[in-house]
């Protein structure tokens, strides 16, 4: 199948090596906690500022996604920190695909002098909100009129059902097995077990445990599906020159790619049913960065379901399309000796479901060599972002 009949690569300017991520912050990650989205984002931001050695008054750029009404926008930032300075504000930040593409837009803003220190945050309080099915992960889909009228009436709702259907087809086309999907869940759980703050830190999972557990949306078991969490994270970007004067080891943005599917979030109609727009995003990022998949020391992908990890690993070129199952089997994804250390904080399956922004924080931590499940000598790390309609590839390098 050609890769041009169902989507395209967004054309991006070369921003490789222009900026660095100089501060990272996690919120507390939890099940239902009663916290608000803005409280969570503010906590992550305070920690990112401390990590960078900056103050709130240094921040003159702010990125978030208008994904819910309660994201950490300029008004919320000023109210929390008591600052008054003008902020370059962009709604092309946040989590998911944008956790990977925000550095591109930040680099353009920094290059043009519109901002010097840009903060990107994302937070959710979905564990707290879940009881009302308000603001939860299914809501945006439930509100879509095509889905309401042509999917939901037939029980094809919400995301676990969509992606179970994709996993079934992947199994049919390529021979992918439950054991192979389980290897992803097991690697993520092992990494979460080593990571302070991970929601599933005290819940070990073996492949035998996985295979014994019942399916909830066949072929998915509960462990194929991400958590529902309260939490968020933040990271701060600035020019490479300014980064040299700050306290942390330099983690440079080496490449960014963005890809788009023609069929958006209507997975039922996506021509390449067992693929992600990473096939469009990753080549541009690798070209901008001047590196190849074999050069990558650590990978983190937006992982709502095991199959989404597997497809992105294929689509980014870490193995041939369809070989993802055999590729991820065994210890390939483990931090300590695996060929492709993956979601070394536990990912959305086992760390927290904060939609990818914690993945970027983890990759930065890996490249600083301060991660809990540290990959030895990690120098190049990648985040694969995903929303369904789009995918992003963010390539970071320790300088």
């Amino acid at each position: 199948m050609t890769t041009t009949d169902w989507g395209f690569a967004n054309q991006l300017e070369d921003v490789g090596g222009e900026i660095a991520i100089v501060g990272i912050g996690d919120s507390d990650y939890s099940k239902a906690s009663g916290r608000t989205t803005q409280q969570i984002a503010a906590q992550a931001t305070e920690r990112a500022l401390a990590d960078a050695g900056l103050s709130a008054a240094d921040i003159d750029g702010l990125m978030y996604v208008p994904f819910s009404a309660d994201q950490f926008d300029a008004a919320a930032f000023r109210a929390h920190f008591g600052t008054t300075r003008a902020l370059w504000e962009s709604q092309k930040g946040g989590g998911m695909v944008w956790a990977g593409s925000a550095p591109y837009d930040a680099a353009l803003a920094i290059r043009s002098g519109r901002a010097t220190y840009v903060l990107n945050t994302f937070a959710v309080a979905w564990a707290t909100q879940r009881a009302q099915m308000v603001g939860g992960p299914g809501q945006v889909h439930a509100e879509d009129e095509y889905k309401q009228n042509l999917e939901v009436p037939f029980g094809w709702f919400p995301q676990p059902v969509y992606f179970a259907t994709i996993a079934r087809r992947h199994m049919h086309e390529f021979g992918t097995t439950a054991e192979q999907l389980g290897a992803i869940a097991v690697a993520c759980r092992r990494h979460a077990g080593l990571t302070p703050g991970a929601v599933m830190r005290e819940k070990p999972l073996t492949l035998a445990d996985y295979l014994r557990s019942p399916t909830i949306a066949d072929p998915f078991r509960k462990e194929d599906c991400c958590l529902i969490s309260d939490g968020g994270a933040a990271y701060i970007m600035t020019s490479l020159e300014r980064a040299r004067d700050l306290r942390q080891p330099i983690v440079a943005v080496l490449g960014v790619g963005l890809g788009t599917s023609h069929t958006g979030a209507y997975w039922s109609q996506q021509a390449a049913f067992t693929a992600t727009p990473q096939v469009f995003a990753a080549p541009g990022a690798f070209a901008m960065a001047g590196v190849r998949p074999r050069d990558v020391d650590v990978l983190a992908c937006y992982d709502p379901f095991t199959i989404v990890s597997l497809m992105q690993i294929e689509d980014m070129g870490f193995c041939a399309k369809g070989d993802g199952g055999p590729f991820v089997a065994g210890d390939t994804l483990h931090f300590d000796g695996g060929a492709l250390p993956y979601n070394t904080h536990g990912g959305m399956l086992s760390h927290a479901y904060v939609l990818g922004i914690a993945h970027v924080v983890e990759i930065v931590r890996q490249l600083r060599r301060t991660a809990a499940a540290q990959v030895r000598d990690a120098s190049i790390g990648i985040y694969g972002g995903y929303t369904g309609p789009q995918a992003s590839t963010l390539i970071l390098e320790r300088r």
Partner: protein
Amino acid sequence: MHPDFPLPDVTWEPARPFWEAAARGVLLITRCEQCGRLVWYPETPCRYCRGASLSWIEVSGRGRLFSWSVVRYAWIPQVADRLPFVTGLVALEEDPAVRVVTYVVDCAPDALRCDMAVQVVFRPLRYPGVAGEVIAPLFTPA
């Protein structure tokens, strides 16, 4: 969300002919008036040629089971009394790029296979707490 959720809103204009036809046992799909290809869902512009108008045509109701899931957990309470159920996608004989979302009925889950031949049947959909029923195209092994 409309008040009959998770039943369809049969008065919602983009899919109204689909539900009206189903009520008389006919499966209709939209076709682009410019390029002639079947286009699903019924939204414009056409994803192939950017054509601005669609017409509804009758299809055979034959197709192949593209993929499915056996659902054993109620993510919305209205489906709890149907568990387990089989929901999935049928690729139509006229153009397999069109995948109709459907329930697969009258078949043991263990007997399902990707690409098995299926055909449409028309059955009422009902959900607890929602008044009335809607006749819908479901699929069964051919």
